[in-house]
């Protein structure tokens, strides 16, 4: 008996682990943005970046010693050394770009990377810039105001990756907070950097509206009982859409907003079934009351309505 029970439990567990999510009545799940190849690529790029950084640490130590020695000589008025810092820096920068920045760009564009991992790219770029400043060289890569600068080119895929992550979280949970908080963080960053990113804001608000679609379902049982009985059930649903306007960006999203429905163009989804009817009431026979309303015609829509009393 115990053996049979354990087999049964095993079968149940197996079903729970292998059955499609829709088997439990859940909505279809998101297909992942990443493939196994993306995961493999991400792993390879992360290893490459960390390995390069490890190598660079020893190079930087030696370079710093060399730099200090050179500066000392300059201060003492001794003839300049033979070290060409500009070419050294260029070589270092090239090596850095090839072994750190390039894989970091790939990481930022890799759908398997989380937002935080994608942000690694920005940290690497800032680190490279600090290194350049240490050597007294202005690379021009970090000009936030220049759309063609490396940092601006890096920012775009990172923001996109983070937006994707927030959107996926919203799609899985139904909670628009993920997109709201993401947009708030990005908008603040853009504000600090004096960057106009209204297109990005509009996209994020659009995705908020795109994700936070709700369906109000209802099942109603109603009865009127006097010296007659009239009863019916109603099953129906209404699609509710957010009334936020993407063109208003984060400012509009932070204002109180509502989810409304149905729109004028939405088809009616109501099924009314009369369960008790046609009994004598005050000398008037009632019959043929609303029995089914699916697909009610346009001529049956009215802005104002006249109520028909049943009693």
């Amino acid at each position, binding site marked *: 008996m115990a053996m049979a029970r354990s087999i049964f439990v095993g079968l149940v567990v197996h079903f729970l682990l292998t059955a499609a999510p829709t088997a439990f009545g*859940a*909505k*279809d799940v998101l*297909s992942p943005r990443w493939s196994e190849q993306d995961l493999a690529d991400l792993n390879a790029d992360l290893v490459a970046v960390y390995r390069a950084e490890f190598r660079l640490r020893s190079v930087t130590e030696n370079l710093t010693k060399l730099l200090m020695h050179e500066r000392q000589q300059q201060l003492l008025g001794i003839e300049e050394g033979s070290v060409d810092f500009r070419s050294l820096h260029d070589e270092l920068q090239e090596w850095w770009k090839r072994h750190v920045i390039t894989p970091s760009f790939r990481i930022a564009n890799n759908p398997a990377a989380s937002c935080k991992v994608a942000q690694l790219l920005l940290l690497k770029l800032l680190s490279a810039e600090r290194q350049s400043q240490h050597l007294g060289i202005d690379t021009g890569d970090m000009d936030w105001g220049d759309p063609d600068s490396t940092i601006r080119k890096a920012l775009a895929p990172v923001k*996109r990756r983070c937006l*994707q992550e927030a*959107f996926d979280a919203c799609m*899985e*949970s*139904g*909670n*628009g*907070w993920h997109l709201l*908080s993401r947009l708030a963080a990005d908008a603040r960053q853009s504000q600090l950097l004096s960057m106009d990113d209204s297109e990005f804001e509009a996209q994020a608000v659009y*995705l908020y*509206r*795109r994700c936070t*679609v*709700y*369906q*109000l*379902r*209802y*099942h*109603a*049982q*109603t*009865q*009127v*009982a*006097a010296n007659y009985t*009239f009863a*019916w059930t*109603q*099953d*129906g*649903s209404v*699609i509710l*859409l957010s009334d936020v306007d*993407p063109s208003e960006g984060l400012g509009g999203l932070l204002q109180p907003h509502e989810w*409304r429905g149905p*729109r004028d163009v939405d088809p009616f989804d*109501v*099924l*009314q079934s009369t369960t008790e009817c046609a009994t004598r009431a005050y000398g*008037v*026979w*009632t*019959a043929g*009351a609303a029995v089914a*309303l699916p697909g*009610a015609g346009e001529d*049956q*829509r009215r802005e104002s*309505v*006249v*109520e*028909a009393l*049943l*009693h």
Partner: protein
Amino acid sequence: MKHYYTEKVVAEDGSVSVQQQTGGNDALTLTFAPPMVVTTATLISKEMTLPVPMVPSKTAVLAAYDRTTVEELELSNWTRIGNDVLFEKTVNGQQTQKKTTFTDNTKFELVHRPDLFPAEEIVPKWELTPTIEPESPNRRPAQSK
């Protein structure tokens, strides 16, 4: 809606720990707009047969909750369920007016259905691909308890 997030917390001794935090409230209020649907009922008496416009169940439902307009019906204090049914609420009302008893029992469910976003409102340049897989149109109305 209530949401969960992690936060790095620095203790007095300088140690850093990651803690799960919650924010927001599961607050939902449902209000009703004036009805959009009118159907035709037929009053039959010995003298005449008269078709009349009728708002289905509105009068009886309002009477059951002792309200005069649908705008007065406001539903809050929903129960948070999970996903994809996010919230649920059941209302019961019964009132007797002039020897007539009006009774209503309605169960509402708020379901997350991004797949129902209107196709005509999709802005292709703002879409993030791949998008959610379309759901088969298997409408499932809420069931009474």
